[in-house]
Structure formats: structure tokens, C-alpha cells
């Protein structure tokens, strides 16, 4: 598992208060992990800070699953 994947999953676990085994790639934040829309906004804020990037609103709206978050960070991270 790449470093980015682990860091993204760690943030999801912290922000949404879910268990590690629940954070599967296909898991949807709102449907599977019990997040409401505001939790998702805060999750994106936390990702922005961890990876020192700015995620535009129209991109943020597409980040609905664990895999989508990992893919976005991988594609846009400076590292």
C-alpha cells in the first residue's frame, strides 16, 4: 500500500470516526461510512491540509468514496 493511500485512510478514520476495516476503496462516505454532507466538507478540508493542496469546490463534490479521495490526491499531490 502506498504512503498516500495510508495517509488518506488515516484521515478518513480520524474525521469520520470509523474503523479501519470499514474504509474499503469502494466505500461511500455518505452511504457506507455514515458521513453527512458537512462531514464530507470537513474531510476535504483535512485532506487539503495534510497534502498542502487546494481542492476546488467542483472537484471536491466528486470525491464521494475512499478510492476517489486516494485518486484525487495521487493525481494532484506535489510529492
Amino acid at each position, binding site marked *: 500500500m502506498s504512503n498516500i493511500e495510508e495517509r488518506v485512510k488515516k484521515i478518513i478514520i480520524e474525521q469520520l470516526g470509523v474503523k479501519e476495516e470499514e474504509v474499503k476503496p469502494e466505500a461511500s462516505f455518505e452511504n457506507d461510512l455514515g458521513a453527512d454532507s*458537512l462531514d464530507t*466538507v*470537513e474531510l476535504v*478540508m483535512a485532506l487539503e491540509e495534510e497534502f498542502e493542496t487546494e481542492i476546488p469546490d467542483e472537484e471536491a463534490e466528486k470525491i464521494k468514496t475512499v478510492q476517489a479521495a486516494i485518486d484525487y490526491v495521487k493525481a494532484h499531490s506535489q510529492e
Partner: protein
Amino acid sequence: MFDLTGQVALVTGASRGIGRAIAEQLAAAGATVIGTATSDKGATAISDYLGERGCGMALNVTDSEAVSGLIKQVESDYQKIDILVNNAGITQDNLLMRMKDDEWQSVIDTNLTAIFRLCKAVMRGMMKRRHGRIINISSVVGTTGNPGQTNYCAAKAGLVGFSKSLAKEIAARGVTVNCVAPGFIDTDMTKALTEDQKSAIFANIPATRLGEPEEVAAAVVFLASKGAAYITGETIHVNGGMAMI
């Protein structure tokens, strides 16, 4: 319960009138206050009366980039914004039949759209810290209506609906959003009234006088305080009894 020591407050339209009274009372309660005015001269005047307790900054609230720039600067200079008071407002009165598009638009831009931008800009920090107070200055005429002020009343009523919706969105994050709705207050806005107009107004005010800016500011300080943590989406009317809602 009402002490604001260690808190940082941003007050728009703070060079005179109600905004100035709000800035002064927040500072008196212990907060560090940043007051905005449209001109550099106004900003200097704010710095002068606040002294050690804060400073004035120039801001055109309808300039989206200027708003986000100012919020970033304040958050970098003072680390945070705990209290946002959206007080800046204008009037462009005219009968609807005579109202120009720009008279409508400028009042909506300054009195309503600017509040959307300012709230959005402070939201991130407040949500992260799980603490924030947003107080929007509405007006009694937003509830009662007033001939010649369709634009102003629409914006002021709009603020109430806006505040209730935002209050519901972020209540779980420890951020409250409320309105204070002044009646007729003794400021430059009401000094333009003639004696005849004033006596006509007093006939409808059980308190038989204009309100003082300090009497509006006191309600704002209360809503900004720890004591008001469980009040959100509410409007406090400060109008000497002219409308009991």
C-alpha cells in the same frame, strides 16, 4: 459569562453609528476588534478610537477578492476570527415604480450578497476550532416592510432566512448564527429625518424616542458571548416596542 477576553472579532462598517458602538462594546468586553470601513480615512478613524484594542482596515464588502484577502490577513495577523458582525449596509430608497436596476442591485450586493461571502470566508476557521459567532445586523423593516425600501427590506428579510439556514447547517460545530434587528436608532441614517417625520415615527414607538447605537451593541455583545451558546437562528429585535414579533 459575557467576557470576551482572548477573542478576535471582525465588525464591518465600524467607522460610525451602530457599527462603531458594536466595535467599542466588543472591545470593552475584552475582545480584540478589527473594524472595517470603505475608505482608508474611515479605517484610520477606527484605529484611532480602538487604540490598543484592535485596528481599522479598508474593505469594500462587495469586492469578493478583497473579502477573502482581508479574512486571510486577519487570520494570519491575529490567528483566528471568533466573532463576525456583518453590520455594513447602505440604503438607496425609491418607490418601486421609480427604482433603477442599479439601486436594487447595489443594496442587494452590499446588504445581502456580501454577507454570504464574509460568512463563507470565516467558516473554515470557525468549523475547525468548533467555535464561532456570526451576528448579522438586519432591521425591523425587514419584518414590517417600509414604503420606498423594497430593496433594503428584501435584503434585510433575506438575512434572516440566510441566518436560519446557515445556523442549521453548522450548529453541530459550535458555531451560532443570529440576527439583531434594530428599529429607529439615532445615527447618521436617521439624522436625515425631519422633525415632522420623527414625530410621525414616535407615534408608533411605545418608548417615544430613538434607540441609541449602544442599545443595539449590547444585544450583539450578548449574542457573541459564552452565555448565548445555545441561541442560534434567532433574531433579537431592538426597537423600543414599535414591532413586537
